[in-house]
């Protein structure tokens, strides 16, 4: 079992948005931490969420399910979940095969994802 680190960045200029920088391994052991982070962001009404996966080494299907699980609520509130820098080939492959990027937009850069991750008007 590996370790995971979740850095949450809350830009001062965007009270509606948060950036999550995920690193390490999201599996059964580390899942609860990520779940809590997402739950807290929902509580703070940050319904636009950018997930930076630059240092993500592995994510289990249950880990991906966390994002899917909150998507309904996020969209109901007019928000969006975007991903950036899914660099690890195996992680990208796993998400891509499932069709994850058909549902969650993927960007090359975090800054680009932040710009695009806005409430729909």
């Amino acid at each position, binding site marked *: 079992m590996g370790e995971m680190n979740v850095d949450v960045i809350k830009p001062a200029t965007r009270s509606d948005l948060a950036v999550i920088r995920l690193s390490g391994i999201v599996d059964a052991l580390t899942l609860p931490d990520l779940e809590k982070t997402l739950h807290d962001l929902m509580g703070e009404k940050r319904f636009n969420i950018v997930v930076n996966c630059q240092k993500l080494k592995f994510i289990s299907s249950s880990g991906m399910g966390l994002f*899917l699980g909150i998507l309904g609520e996020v969209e109901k509130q007019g928000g969006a979940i975007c991903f950036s820098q899914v660099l690890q080939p195996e992680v990208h492959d796993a998400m891509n095969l*499932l069709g994850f990027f*058909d549902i969650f937009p993927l960007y090359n850069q975090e800054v680009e994802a932040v710009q695009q991750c806005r409430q729909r008007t």
Partner: protein
Amino acid sequence: MKIWRDKRSEEPLKRMLEFVNAAQRGDFSITLPVTSSGELGELERGLNRLVEEIRTNRDLWEEQKTLQRELKISRGIQATLLPSSLPQVPAMEIETFYRPAIQIGGDYYDFIEIDTNHLGIAIADVSGKSVSGAMLMTLARNTLRAQAMLTLSPQEVLERTQKLLLPNIMSQFFVSIFYAILDKRFNRLVCANAGHPPLLYFRAEAGECEWVRPKGIAVGLSRNGLRPVSSEEKELSLGPGDLAFFYTDGISDTTDIRGKYFGRDRIAEIAVKSAPRGAKAFLADLQEALASHGGDGPQGDDMTGVVLRRLVAPS
């Protein structure tokens, strides 16, 4: 030195002794009244804490035992959902490989005798493990089975399966399914895919492998059902010696001690080398390679595979 007994300490000590004896008999229902002050009072409180802790641990252990029993039953139920025998198809070899991880897994495979000429082959991976995964797996399997009997279009089977399953899948769950229909008369395989790893297709004549990946997304990903799960079908014709391998990502994602993935390329390499010797030989070599790659580490995910190989006609 003179040892003298304090009359006042006799009663509490007696009570403590009874308390300890009761705990030794397994009776944790009593709470020791704290009547003394000073060190004796400390002792009374300490004994209560100790017994409370033992009681909690015992309850946890009992719960654990019940859970283990239930897991064992669930595993048993799940095992009965897998086909108990392999379908007999003239001129075809069919072999399977199923190795669940320690927990209850969410993989399954299935053979569906649609009619005399058509055999449905399904392989699926449910997100989430344990009981929730097993329940969704059962639901997905039965839904797909029922739909498979109604049409010879694998794409349509997957679409209908998604439509029926969606209202019953909790939002964080999804299931990837590769479904193909074999026409036994012409050795033709029509494939559709809902977000599952591609099918390995080994062509004996060329001695090469290719990946068959019909477009589609996992069932449950598009919550409103607006996106089709399967948006195309791909057809392949199995020539003599050709092999098709359906599998779940537990195989390709097996990691070695340094975290290096087994990978799809490796599966293809083994197919090129072993497929000419038959379906059994391919699976045996694959399993051997997986075991040596994964080493003694714990198996993180279920591994499931189905091999279909057309026999080479005797010359």
